[in-house]
């Protein structure tokens, strides 16, 4: 929720593929793919260094974190020796990296569960919630964006754009509270508490409880993606193929639906990959507000109780998902539009 929405065409790529020097694509798709994957690996490594540094920035270090404030100096020394914390920092980092690679993210201080188990239990539910929000949002945002582009600079375009900024400026939790007040408290249409349960099936068995969380999550995505869709459609409406199709006698409506829509969707779909971190942030707030038992709520409870292994494990998993998301987005774009292959930062 923290990236200003681009207001004009051309700013579309600014999110991730910063306008790089227009360099001729060196080599073909294979070379692009290798360079891009290597770059993603480097980013993941840097993330792991940041997370490791955070672990060591804890007051009193990890030993104090596990043993608590009352631990004696001897206990801490024993704990550090047992867990390799007396080793040189570089060795500690390497062993942290090795353990993370094998999926061992440590034990939660409080949940009596390993961090990877705790995440594995909740991640599918978060993916379900964000996936539903995303589907609802795209179903609304695509037609709205195309409509705005076709009616560009008319009153209706102006008002819809303003509405998008207002929606974007509304904190997700405030929006959720308003929906609770209106649709749950006043109108009594939907429950304000999200479905509970361990698996996805438990959650899906209570669809009424999903309405408000999904809606709350969808509104900011609509605000952002209707603007992407608008500028992408505008770019395409100016292309030669539109004039050609029109000159051959194809109706305007049919050109928009059959040609422009398809071409405009490509960059917007790729944008979804770059948008992942924003969606995870939104999920955190929605889950906390509606008490939805996903990864965001797990993270929030861990922050309340200073459960550092869970906090850092979640950060690692989410960052990994983000890197993979933008990697996929770049690859999808490179497959569909070879011009972007040279634009590697």
């Amino acid at each position, binding site marked *: 929720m*923290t990236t*200003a929405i681009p207001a004009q065409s051309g700013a579309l790529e600014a999110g991730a593929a910063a306008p790089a020097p227009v360099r001729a694509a060196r080599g073909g798709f294979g070379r692009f793919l290798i360079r891009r994957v290597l770059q993603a690996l480097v980013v993941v490594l*840097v993330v792991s260094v940041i997370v490791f540094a955070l672990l060591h920035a804890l007051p009193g270090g990890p030993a104090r974190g596990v043993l608590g404030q009352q631990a004696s100096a001897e206990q801490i020394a024993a704990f550090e020796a047992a867990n390799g914390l007396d080793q040189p920092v570089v060795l500690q980092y390497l062993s942290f990296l090795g353990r993370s690679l094998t999926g061992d993210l440590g034990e939660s201080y409080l949940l009596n569960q390993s961090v990877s188990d705790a995440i594995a239990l909740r991640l599918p539910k978060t993916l379900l919630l964000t996936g539903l929000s995303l589907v609802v949002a795209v179903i609304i945002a695509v037609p709205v964006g195309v409509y705005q582009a076709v009616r560009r600079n008319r009153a209706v375009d102006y008002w819809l754009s303003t509405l998008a900024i207002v929606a974007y*400026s509304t904190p997700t939790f405030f929006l959720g*509270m308003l929906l609770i007040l209106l649709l749950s408290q006043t109108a009594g249409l939907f429950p304000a508490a999200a479905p509970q349960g361990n698996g996805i099936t438990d959650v899906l068995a209570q669809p009424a409880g999903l309405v408000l969380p999904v809606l709350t999550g969808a509104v900011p995505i609509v605000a952002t993606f209707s603007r992407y869709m608008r500028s992408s459609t505008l770019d395409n409406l100016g292309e030669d193929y539109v004039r050609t199709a029109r000159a051959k006698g194809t109706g305007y409506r049919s050109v928009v639906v059959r040609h422009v829509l398809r071409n405009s969707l490509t960059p917007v779909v790729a944008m979804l990959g770059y948008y992942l971190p924003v969606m995870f942030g939104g999920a955190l*707030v929605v889950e906390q507000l509606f008490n939805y038992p996903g990864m965001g709520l797990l993270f929030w409870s861990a922050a309340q109780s200073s459960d550092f292994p869970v906090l850092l494990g979640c950060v690692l998993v989410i960052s990994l998902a983000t890197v993979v998301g933008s990697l996929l987005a770049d690859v999808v774009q490179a497959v569909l539009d070879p011009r972007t292959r040279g634009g590697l930062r």
Partner: protein
Amino acid sequence: MTALRRFTRNRLAVVGAVALAVLVLFAVLGPLVHPTEQVVTDLGAANLPPGVDGHPLGTDALGYDNLGRLMVAGRVSLLVGVLAGVLATVLGTLWGAVAGYVGGVVDAVMMRVVDAGIAIPAIFLLLVLSTIVRPTVGMMIVVLGLVSWLVPARLIRAEALSVRTRDYVVAARAMGATHRRTVLNHVIPNTVGTVVVNATFQVADAILLVAYISFLGMGIQPPTTDWGAMLNDGINYIYQGAWWLILPPGLAIVIVVCALNFVGDGLRDVVDVKGRAA
């Protein structure tokens, strides 16, 4: 057309600027007009609806006057938002300008650091950091600034990449200007349009982020408060219909963030040469 004319032609930008001015005056001068007790609690006057006992917007669960609280909370939200936004812009501009100007391996390394930072969603990093350091006003500004400099760094780097090959930069180097002088006197001043426009959005985003952190209960601690923290306090009374604890701080955030976005769009009209014809 003068810069001011171009700005005022965007009516929303004018509305935004006026709304901003009003909200700043409300937060800064409001307590002088409507002085209230915001440290000592008064449980005898808790949860009063608007208009009762001289409380125009009622009171909260601790008996604080809600209108007065909205003002002092606004001071914190605006102060943290503006300073964190400025800090992020300064850090991002320096980082991006150096990376774009130097290029090569240095650029690649500096940009991978930015990529890694962007891969960690800000709100998660902020929650981790606020469990490590005590969230005071000053600390919030520093932490928010350290988390939000990445996007401006990317933007300024892209600008610097195009500026570095311009004749005036080449000329400055040929006349013997040091790299440091070239970056500070030629590269950064020529990206100032992008910097200023982005700073506006940066402040808007910082105000939103402070609200999120406070709403999640990990922000600035009582009796100091901000608009997000007021919403966090108010949500417990949402089922008793205490709308006056929810709507005023919520709308204040929406208005100030909207206003900043409108002003940013207006400023973009002023500095964006390409957009002038449109």
